[in-house]
């Protein structure tokens, strides 16, 4: 298989001007000062190849140069030094709908956007219906884009990009926008791209996505390559670099326990993805320890779809002691009553040391479930609650009232 993208010693320097003087007068008056700037290397000697048909993950903290690198691959920025070779047509989902003109209709913008990617009218004609379908715009397609909601904007942008038959698809964090149903649809489409043997470059903070979807990954740290290779390894390196305890101590991630499966069981003991408030839930996690672990702490955390931490606890906080022998074990966490009312949630399970400085295993997105409420009760929580009314013997109320 050939290479889709080839980077050789790519560096990018930005000049951070202390003050920008853009006009001639100011340039003349402040001639010296306008030249004062600091150099900032957003990328420093980055080299790697992306082979055709692979799904490539790019991870790193904010400001590590991921987006700059993507922009260089897309041809938007020119590297200060180094070489970039690209084989094939690129569609970049950097910020969706970038090429939209607010006064043109959705339909007109599809043609405009397509031609930005170098596609002719006839090719777009053939795909127009499925683009409109995918974007779920219906009659809005003939309305000016300025009347669109942000969701419609994003959907149209994604729909156009994925329908244009790119050889290489660059995706920058865009899966974070849009509602969940649309996110699912986008992910499904990206998987389809994988099957079709297209090259995908994924930039994301959601490292589990990288582990799930990518076959190769690079970890950028302050513009330098800090890891490359198998996604699980790279993600581990990234976690190591990134994780600190609340007090700032460094946390190391050692993958000597695997969690191959996590199951959520409903009240009837069967695997379920939907629960109702007040029901019970049992979390069953298969563990596979490579060695004996003394005094492990098991943790469970629940986040909602907006990423808010809804609940979390561990065996340390609950004053429990245990141990983990090599080989397969099963961890069971029982919630007798689920308190959340409605929404989608993500449950993660982890194993770490008592001081929290060593993480043996974490699952990232294994347990997804939905809460549905059939009752008309308002509020966001379900709480067990009883009402009682009893008659109380009447005692000299009149005296109190009369003062």
């Amino acid at each position, binding site marked *: 298989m*050939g290479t889709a993208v080839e980077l050789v010693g790519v560096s990018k320097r*930005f000049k951070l001007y202390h003050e920008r003087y*853009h*006009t*001639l*007068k100011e*340039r003349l008056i402040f001639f010296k000062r306008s030249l004062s700037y600091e150099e900032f290397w957003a990328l420093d000697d980055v080299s790697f190849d992306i082979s*055709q048909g692979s799904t490539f993950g790019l991870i790193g903290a904010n400001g590590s140069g991921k987006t700059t690198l993507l*922009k*260089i*691959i*897309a*041809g*938007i*920025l*020119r*590297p200060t030094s*180094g*070489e*970039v*070779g*690209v*084989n*094939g*047509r*690129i569609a*970049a989902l*950097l*910020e969706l709908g*970038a*090429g939209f*003109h607010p*006064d*043109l209709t959705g339909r*007109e913008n599809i*043609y*405009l956007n*397509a*031609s*930005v*990617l*170098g*596609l*002719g*009218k006839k090719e777009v004609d053939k795909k127009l219906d499925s683009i409109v379908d995918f974007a779920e715009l219906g009659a809005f397609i003939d309305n*000016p884009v300025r009347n669109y909601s942000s969701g419609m904007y994003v959907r149209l942008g994604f729909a156009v990009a994925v329908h244009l038959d790119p*050889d290489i698809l660059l995706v920058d964090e865009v899966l974070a926008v849009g509602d969940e149903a649309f996110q699912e649809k986008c992910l499904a489409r990206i998987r389809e791209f994988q099957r079709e043997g297209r090259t995908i470059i994924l930039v994301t903070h959601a490292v589990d996505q990288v582990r799930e979807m990518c076959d190769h990954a690079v970890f950028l740290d302050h513009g330098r390559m800090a890891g490359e290779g198998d996604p699980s390894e790279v993600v581990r390196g990234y976690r190591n670099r990134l994780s600190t305890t609340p007090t700032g101590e460094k946390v190391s991630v050692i993958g000597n326990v695997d969690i191959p499966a996590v199951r959520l069981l409903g009240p009837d003991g069967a695997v379920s993805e939907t629960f109702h408030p007040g029901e019970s839930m049992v979390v069953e996690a298969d563990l596979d320890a490579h060695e004996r672990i003394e005094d492990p702490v098991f943790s469970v955390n629940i986040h909602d779809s907006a990423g808010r931490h809804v609940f979390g606890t561990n065996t340390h906080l609950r004053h429990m002691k245990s141990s983990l022998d090599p080989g397969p074990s099963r961890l069971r966490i029982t919630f007798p009553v689920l308190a959340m009312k409605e929404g989608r949630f993500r449950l993660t399970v982890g194993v770490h040391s008592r001081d929290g400085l060593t993480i043996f295993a974490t699952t990232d997105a294994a347990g997804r479930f939905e809460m549905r409420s059939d009752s008309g009760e308002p509020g966001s929580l379900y709480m067990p609650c009883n009402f009682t009314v009893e008659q109380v013997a009447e005692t000299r109320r009149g005296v109190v009232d009369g003062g």
Partner: protein
Amino acid sequence: MESAAREARTKPIASDVVGRARRLYRYRELLLNLVRREIRGRYRASALGFLWSMLTPILYLVVFYVVFNIFLRGGIPYFPVFLLSGLLPWTLFASALSAGTSSVVGNAPLLKKVFFPREVLPLASIGAALFHFVLQMGVLIGFLLIFRYEFVDRHLLLVPVALFVELLLLAGLTLMLSAITVYLRDVQHFLELALLAWFWLTPIIYPIVLVFEKLSVRGMFGLYLLNPMTPIVLTFQRAFYGRVPPLLDVSFSWYLEKLAYVGLAGIVLVFLGQMVFVRLEGNFAEEI
């Protein structure tokens, strides 16, 4: 994958005019769409749409007819025709140049997020101005036909040449200025003033004969003709207005020769503009 699609994104292909032209051709659809966008964007939500563009010359014709044939009689005969035949190519020049100059700066969001050959932007501005020019020329020609104004002679053959030469000038200048504007925003304001002066230095509302009488005595008429817009405007006037007295009594080949010089200057400008553009375009996305 075809290896033809392979693009090295590192070294600017500055000297490679053919390669860039070929890439531009691949993006012709984008160029057309951007022209369309500029035209539609200008008259968005207006009931008459680009009829507005045709109303301007109609208004000129009516107003100047009233002013110069009724109030101020005795000047240049058929003044509205004289004026419009020189003014329309000038309007094309001035509007394309000012729109083209700010085209790169004005499309910052697009530049920052998508890759495409950047020179499409100034060229699209020229395209949109050209569209309006064609409409307005249509009005002028329609007017001439309706009033049976005789203008059809071989000088009409010079019109496509003059138009082509003007487009060359525009391409070179907009490429250069649009790139420089990214680094020096003053260019747009400077251009406004320059165009005003340039307009009065071009024989559009006064006949060239007057200039010739005044300047040829001092031997400075050649200097006046250095203005590349002069031969272009004169050609349009000769072709559509067609009366020798207020114009110069010169031969067909005189026009051709002058246009050839401007064309040469235009080609040099295109190369220069392209050089400047390629040098500067690499940092557009971060400098805007």
